[in-house]
């Protein structure tokens, strides 16, 4: 009986470990998939592709875990806004390109793994964390681009941030937030022209269909032991979270999208 119970638990945990990788916004993640030169080339390829399409802002997504470790229907683990900017450099020059606006969870050293911060870095930082040869891209409609940038450049950007982090934060609840939920909140602030987090949550519940992460009760029960970032007490019923897939669908269905696509690295 004991052996049977242990086997059942092990099987359940094997399933539970997969949703833990649904999102991963760890700060400054670097993986050995690309060399520094390849990551630099990839970042510049994405930048030029966005620039050719006239995108002042895009939502770009990377996979920080192997696809075989991701739940079904989820392709990417971290997303951020890439914003076209004038970049001042340490040698006193200015150049044109994209800056990246992230929500990062701590790595347990610089700050807590269950707390997030808003950090601006650059495309190279983003591509260095990719474990695959592709990125997901969402380019909002021109009007949405204007509104999103206005939010990013305002106090609203910080106001809609909730530093309490969960890998599978529920976008219908304000209790936790991850990188994609944060982007969704910025989009909502732009769409409804509000900086009220409570109103944003209510509007998202009415209009946004989250991705359902396949999991079971054991995940909810034991998840906090397996990974402190896997907090699910904001979930009622199935585990819901925001992903590239559901964000793109939301924007497509509501006329907020210019285009969404997968961008492949060109060696």
């Amino acid at each position, binding site marked *: 009986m004991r052996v049977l119970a242990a086997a059942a638990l092990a099987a359940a945990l094997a399933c539970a470990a997969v949703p833990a990788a649904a999102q991963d916004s760890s700060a400054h993640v670097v993986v050995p998939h690309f060399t520094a030169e390849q990551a630099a080339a990839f970042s510049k390829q994405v930048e030029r592709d966005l620039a050719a399409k*006239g995108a002042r802002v895009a939502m770009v997504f990377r996979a920080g875990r192997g696809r075989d470790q991701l739940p079904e229907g989820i392709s990417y683990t971290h997303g951020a806004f890439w914003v076209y900017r004038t970049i001042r450099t340490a040698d006193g020059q200015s150049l*044109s*390109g994209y800056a990246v606006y992230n929500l990062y969870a701590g790595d347990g050293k610089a700050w807590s793994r269950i707390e997030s911060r808003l950090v601006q870095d650059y495309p190279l930082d983003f591509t260095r964390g990719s474990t695959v040869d592709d990125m997901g891209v969402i380019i909002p409609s021109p009007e949405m681009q204007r509104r999103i940038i*206005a939010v990013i450049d305002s106090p609203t950007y910080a106001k809609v941030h909730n530093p309490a982090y969960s890998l599978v934060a529920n976008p219908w609840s304000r209790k936790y937030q991850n990188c994609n939920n944060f982007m969704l909140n910025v989009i909502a602030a732009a769409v409804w022209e509000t900086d009220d987090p409570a*109103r944003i949550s209510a509007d998202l519940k009415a209009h946004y269909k989250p991705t359902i992460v396949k999991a079971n009760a054991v995940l909810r029960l034991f998840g906090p032991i397996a990974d402190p970032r896997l907090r699910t007490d904001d979930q009622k019923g199935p585990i819901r979270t925001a992903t590239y897939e559901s964000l793109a669908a939301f924007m497509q269905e509501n006329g907020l999208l210019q285009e969404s696509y997968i961008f492949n690295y060109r060696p």
Partner: protein
Amino acid sequence: MRLPVFSILALSLLAAPAVAQDSVQEASAAGRAASEVATHLTASGVKTAVGVSAIAVGVVGSVAAVGGSAAVVGGTASLGVADSASDAARASGAAASGPLKVDDRVVVSPDPAPQVPYDTKPR
């Protein structure tokens, strides 16, 4: 009664790979500081620049904000962006029109990366 103890032990063992993976990533040779990466890229012939700040393109004067009580649309929530864009959004200078120029240089973050998310005002 022994089952919970065994279960916790099993959980700890099974949870290890997920945590270890993050540690491996951070400890990898590729995980060097940005300044080291810049040096490495430069040695490889890649043109780099250390980014100090990112500012809004074409912004004159202060950056307008969407949001705040004055900008809240009252009544029932509706979805979709109205044809008439808000003045605040227009003031951001984000007119999506035509291809944009991207510099060849690869921008490397300073160490540590800035934590201010909207340092966008012209200086």
